[in-house]
């Protein structure tokens, strides 16, 4: 990152904030997202889920999970927040953000796109920047998915990736499908699909050749 790039970033930041509106349009709807999150969380705990509708039974299961688990409530608040922001409700989204930080220390920035179905086993994660997280991703506690100094483009994490305890994924990198990031790894370069990366900076130590998608949800 040179100094000219940094100045350019500063100039572009306002435009990027304007792009926030576009990103919000890409974010998933509340019901779809929450149902997918619930299915993942329930599968992680071995609770059978019958239907895919937003039924009374599923709402009860959601309430149970909110009460029983560490971070599902915070994730639900995050989903509520994006849907409120999409409807241009003032004040409340930020309040929900603060609440989710209080409940499970989940700080998710405004421009982050999280696709339906993400598992946060215990909360305590920081996600920020122009980051995209696809479905079936597991983010373990103390993980930070964020930015390098002076670059507002964040990581892209593809479906089925598992991010270990305390791992840091920084800068405009791509984590491939079903990859695994070890505990306390610092990821500064792309990680291929089905690979396992560990260390500081992270290096690929194992590469599985698997074309078929994961049968079970991760957990």
């Amino acid at each position, binding site marked *: *990152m040179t100094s000219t790039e940094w100045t350019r970033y500063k100039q572009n930041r*306002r435009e990027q904030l304007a792009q926030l509106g576009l990103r919000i349009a890409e974010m998933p709807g509340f019901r779809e997202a929450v149902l997918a999150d619930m299915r993942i969380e329930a599968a992680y705990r071995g609770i059978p889920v019958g239907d895919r509708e937003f039924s009374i039974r599923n709402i009860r299961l959601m309430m149970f999970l909110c009460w029983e688990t560490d971070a599902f409530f915070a994730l639900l608040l995050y989903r509520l927040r994006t849907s409120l922001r999409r409807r241009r409700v003032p004040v409340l989204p930020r309040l929900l*953000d603060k609440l989710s*930080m*209080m409940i499970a220390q989940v*700080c998710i920035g405004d421009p982050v796109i999280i696709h339906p179905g993400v598992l946060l086993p215990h909360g305590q994660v920081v996600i920020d920047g122009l980051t995209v997280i696809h479905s079936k991703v597991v983010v373990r506690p103390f993980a*930070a998915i964020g930015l390098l100094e002076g670059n507002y483009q964040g990581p892209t994490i593809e479906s089925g990736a598992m991010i270990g305890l305390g791992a*840091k994924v920084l800068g405009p990198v791509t984590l491939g499908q079903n990859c695994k990031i070890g505990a306390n790894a610092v990821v500064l370069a792309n990680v291929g699909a089905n690979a396992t990366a560990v260390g*500081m900076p992270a290096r690929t130590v194992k590469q599985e050749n698997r074309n078929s998608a994961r049968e079970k949800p991760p957990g």
Partner: protein
Amino acid sequence: MLSDNTKKSLDPKLKKRIRRAMLRERLAEMPGFRKAVLADLRVLASSWDERIDNETFTASVIWKTIVYCWETDAFLALVLYRLRVSMMRRRIPFLPRLMDKLSMMVAQVCIGDPVIIYPGLRLPHGQVVIDGATIIQSKVRIRPFVTIGLREGNYQGPTIERGASIGTGARVIGPVTLGRNCSVGANAVVVKNVPANTTVVGIPARPLEKGKQSENLEQQNDID
């Protein structure tokens, strides 16, 4: 300062009194509330591409403070910490501890009593632990999951000099000095002194090679 043997032989009440006297000494060094919050606000605003020209604590500055407390993750916690310090200086009972708990609740910012933080600290997301007889100078950036703390049995903490930047999840432990404008990589564990304008990474933290250093330096100077 007393040696370890004398400390052990002292009676607990006297020990407590000595600790309080030390704390009082350190409190006298801490910055005032208005000055500190104004500097914090400036540092935050500069990273958001805005400028605050006011030198005094006017109504517009108070409004900006409230806006930033609302908009950002950890600025409220920092303001609560500054409030707590100023209350401790005025010997107000009970309330400082409450402020501490509040700032822990709001953004998980745990800052110990004897820590001296100069005006102008930047906490992007909170979630930091700072403890011990530590000094943090101005324009230091501390990213989430950072711990700045003590070694077992030594109450002297790190000294972090002006413009240092501490990466996500780094640990700075024991009586070390981080030089001016140095930067600590993500998840590094710093147990030795870091010279000025250097980047250190790894466990235990070691300086990066020369080629990468210069690049980093340029970036550093630009921000400050």
